[in-house]
């Protein structure tokens, strides 16, 4: 159980940040896609900017992770179609229900239990992708 504690702590921190930043709010997602506020772009932009810097520094100082190997970001497979088609389908859903997977879970904690319907539907969507994935263009 002890080895899971640090993951619980990171999740806890993530949940707090996403609520306090209002990124879990449907309203903020709507506003973002309307280009009516810089808020969400500021969050994503500074997250990516900080992420780039942290990864560059880790590489420079040859930082090792807790398992003793160099920090390794999973490499995405090459391709175009799966990313543009899958991404667009995701975007349609994201804007429709105003929640991407992280916020879906976090919203349960805020007492918005109707989000469980969205999660159940997302599980179904994932299952159907699993059923069809070798027939889809990637």
């Amino acid at each position: 159980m002890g080895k899971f504690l640090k993951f619980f702590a990171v999740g806890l921190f993530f949940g707090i940040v996403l609520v306090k930043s209002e990124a879990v709010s449907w309203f903020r997602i709507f506003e973002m896609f309307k280009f009516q506020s810089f808020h969400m772009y500021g969050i994503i932009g500074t997250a990516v900017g900080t992420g780039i810097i942290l990864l560059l520094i880790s590489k420079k100082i040859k930082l090792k992770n807790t398992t003793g190997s160099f920090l390794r970001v999973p490499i995405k497979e090459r391709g175009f179609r799966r990313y543009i088609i899958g991404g667009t389908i995701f975007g349609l859903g994201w804007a429709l229900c105003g929640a991407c997977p992280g916020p879906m879970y976090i919203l349960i904690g805020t007492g918005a239990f109707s989000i469980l319907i969205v999660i159940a539907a997302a599980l179904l969507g994932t299952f159907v992708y699993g059923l069809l994935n070798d027939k889809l263009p990637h």
Partner: protein
Amino acid sequence: MEYILQPWPWYISGPLIAIVMFLLLYFGKTFGMSSNLRTLCAIGGAGKRVEFFNYEWKNHRWNLVVVLGAIFGGFIAHYFLSNPININLSEQTIKDLNALGFNNVGKSLLPAELFSWNAVLSLKGILILVIGGFLVGFGTRYAGGCTSGHAITGLSSLQLPSLVAVIGFFLGGLIMIHLIYPILF
């Protein structure tokens, strides 16, 4: 304490999200929230019927613990670390949403028009949540990641596929908000 109780500005929140990603990489894992949907399908026994779910899901339990923490974090942030919700949305957003028939805009995290039990129990209400959730679950696995895996982790490591995926996220989002919402509401 007052600083914590107020909403956190983007220039604090964004870097903190990057730290979440960094910590998970430092612990030898990665930041990807949608993978948990696949793991949950696998735990539910989907691997018996569908090859895509037939893998060692036990190796992904750590990520479910992150989810558990995130739910608890949401609880703490919402009930103990927040002033009453009053999201500082732009004037134009409030006007646009009022015109679409949304009231009390920004006074809660989610609009009652979509997420209250009354709304959920209407045919239109349930269809919106079910179709939205389905598209998120299907699209994220198709694209191999969501906002955390592509937009944060993928872009931070300068990967082209993630940039394409993020362009897709926005393409879909813009189509939904600008072309489909005016028909729906």
